[in-house]
């Protein structure tokens, strides 16, 4: 394949692929604030959105950025922001607001070392629990974790699809490695990609209930300024959208918010396996660590060790049931991650197996050799 072919093959970074994919998904509003290592996403979109009929705005901070994209999404426009650790922390309250008010938005968090300013230019995977539980309250969220530039492209589009379909904030968790690596990617033809838009209400405005339960649990959307004059609040509300502290209504709201993800988890969850059928040792790895894990499996398999890989694309909701089923025969599970064992704990809860962690928090990608060593350790 060469550049003269019709297929669109390019060398691209994860950040570039994320920005390109967002445009393909129909994103036409980006608000952000500069932060390493995510800034290239904003830079690409600052160049491209004005000529694509979209809006790019650099806000005064990350809180303003996520507020602005929620405002834009209420007008019916697909909207996104991109940030990294410190900015992701600042966004948490309004991520909760988007969850509570069911406004579709996509938040990209390019993980770097933390807490605090941490390691601005170096990779980490230490925001995976924050992605799930960062904002206060019980709330549903979807987080995806690509591990290649191609996967970043595909999963950014899926992030928009999930967000539109279920009306939830969706978090794309990249890390500095994926964000900055230049890799060959063949961009799928647009007609091969499914693009989902939020379902609009066809009710007349007089009888429109903005938070009415539906069989899918997802209310029908009406954009601001389209003749539906309704109320949106972060307070607990009834199906009309107005505040309520009635115990039954409040409970129904919380349960529906969670149910709309729970009942679609099989449509959301996706993962990849490698050599898992006969595996006595299973490696669970995501994001850039999965690349090292894949190499480790290949090396160990050459030595005849029965080891396989489970690589989730969707980290939240966590694919615990699937993992438990696929690792029924495994004796040990190894979880390499660039944090001190955040997902290892989740894996342990889901599988009730011996879970061995391989951790690095020094801003360095775990090497295949480190994982291979642990495979030999647990083998004996």
């Amino acid at each position, binding site marked *: 394949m060469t550049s003269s072919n019709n297929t669109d093959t390019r060398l691209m970074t994860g950040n570039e692929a994320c920005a390109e994919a967002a445009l393909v998904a129909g994103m036409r509003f980006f608000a952000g604030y500069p932060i390493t290592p995510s800034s290239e996403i904003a830079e690409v979109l600052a160049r491209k959105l004005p000529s694509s009929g979209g809006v790019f705005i650099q806000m005064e901070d990350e809180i303003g950025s996520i507020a602005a994209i929620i405002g834009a*999404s209420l007008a019916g426009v697909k909207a996104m922001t991109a940030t990294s650790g410190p900015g992701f922390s600042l966004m948490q309250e309004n991520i909760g607001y988007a969850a509570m008010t069911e406004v579709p938005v996509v938040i990209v968090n390019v993980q770097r070392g933390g807490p605090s300013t941490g390691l601005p230019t170096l990779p980490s995977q230490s925001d995976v629990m924050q992605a799930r539980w960062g904002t206060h309250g019980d709330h549903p969220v979807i987080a995806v974790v690509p591990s290649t530039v191609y996967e970043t492209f595909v999963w950014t589009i899926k992030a928009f699809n999930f967000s539109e379909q279920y009306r939830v904030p969706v978090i794309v968790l990249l890390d500095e490695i994926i964000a900055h690596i230049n890799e060959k990617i063949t961009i799928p033809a647009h007609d091969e990609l499914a693009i989902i838009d939020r379902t609009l209400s066809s009710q007349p405005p007089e009888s429109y209930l903005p938070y009415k339960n539906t069989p899918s649990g997802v209310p029908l959307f009406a954009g601001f300024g389209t003749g539906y004059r309704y109320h*949106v609040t972060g307070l607990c509300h009834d199906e009309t959208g107005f*505040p309520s502290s009635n115990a039954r209504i409040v409970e129904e709201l919380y349960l529906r918010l969670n149910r709309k993800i729970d009942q679609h988890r099989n449509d959301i969850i996706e993962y990849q396996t490698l050599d898992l059928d006969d595996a006595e040792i299973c490696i669970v790895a995501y994001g850039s660590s999965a690349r090292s894990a894949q190499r480790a499996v290949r090396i160990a398999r050459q030595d005849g060790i029965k080891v396989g890989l489970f690589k989730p694309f969707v980290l939240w909701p966590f694919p615990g049931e699937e993992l438990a089923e696929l690792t029924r025969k495994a004796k040990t599970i190894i979880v390499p991650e660039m944090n001190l064992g955040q997902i290892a704990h989740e894996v342990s809860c889901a599988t009730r197996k011996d879970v061995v962690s391989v951790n690095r928090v020094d801003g360095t990608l775990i090497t295949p050799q480190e994982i291979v060593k642990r495979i030999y350790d647990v083998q004996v």
Partner: protein
Amino acid sequence: MFRYEYYLRNKHFPHIWCTGCGCGIILKSLLRAIDRSALSKDEIALISGIGCSSRTPGYVDFNTLHTTHGRALAFATGLKLAKPDLKVIVVSGDGDATAIGGNHFIHTARRNIDITAIIYNNHIYGMTGGQASPTTPLGKRGSTAPYGSIEPDFDISGLAIAAGASFVARSTCYHAVQLDKFIEKGLSKKGFSLIEVLSPCPTYYSRPNRLGTAVDMMRWYKENSIPFARAKDMSAEERRDKVITGILHDIERPEFCEEYKRLTERVKGT
């Protein structure tokens, strides 16, 4: 004949505001100004943050958005840019706009985006029980300033002017007729317009500061307000503890949505 009921979500009354609160006065003034501006209910988006004033959107029949504390202007910026044909109005309190939301406040003014902000200044956090705010005057008490505030207070209008707003006016709940006019002017102004309204909080500001009833507060506004035109020639000493009312600032500056549109045309043209 003008009817408030036309603009209100009547079944959501009674409202939550205390007797003597200025929120209702400002709400009615806003509705009169909107009516005079001949805006349709569908084209108005009313956005707020958190606080007593921020409950206003729930009571009016527009596209209404009750957001998080301090962030109304940032939400409004996103909505306005995504749908520039909406008339976007923000209602906010002194704490919401100039403490937690101070950053959004100055940058919204700097961009001069076509949003009208009405800031209810009652010098106190009413919703949470009377804590001191950035506009609590020096020496005045709040539940978190039991010995009197030792912090200088913010001049909300001055802040907006310095940051780049194109229209800034100040009024009080006593001067309701004047307020109608200012809001109407603000709504018709292309760019960021800000109307600061001094508003009584008899429950949490007047009482601990022994300023009397809501009626006493209205009398105080009446007796201590000085029109901007007259105040210009007064010394700082004469202006102390007075409320300078009027249109304080009214200039033409490039508006952000239009500038963005121009940018897109320029980029597409090349």
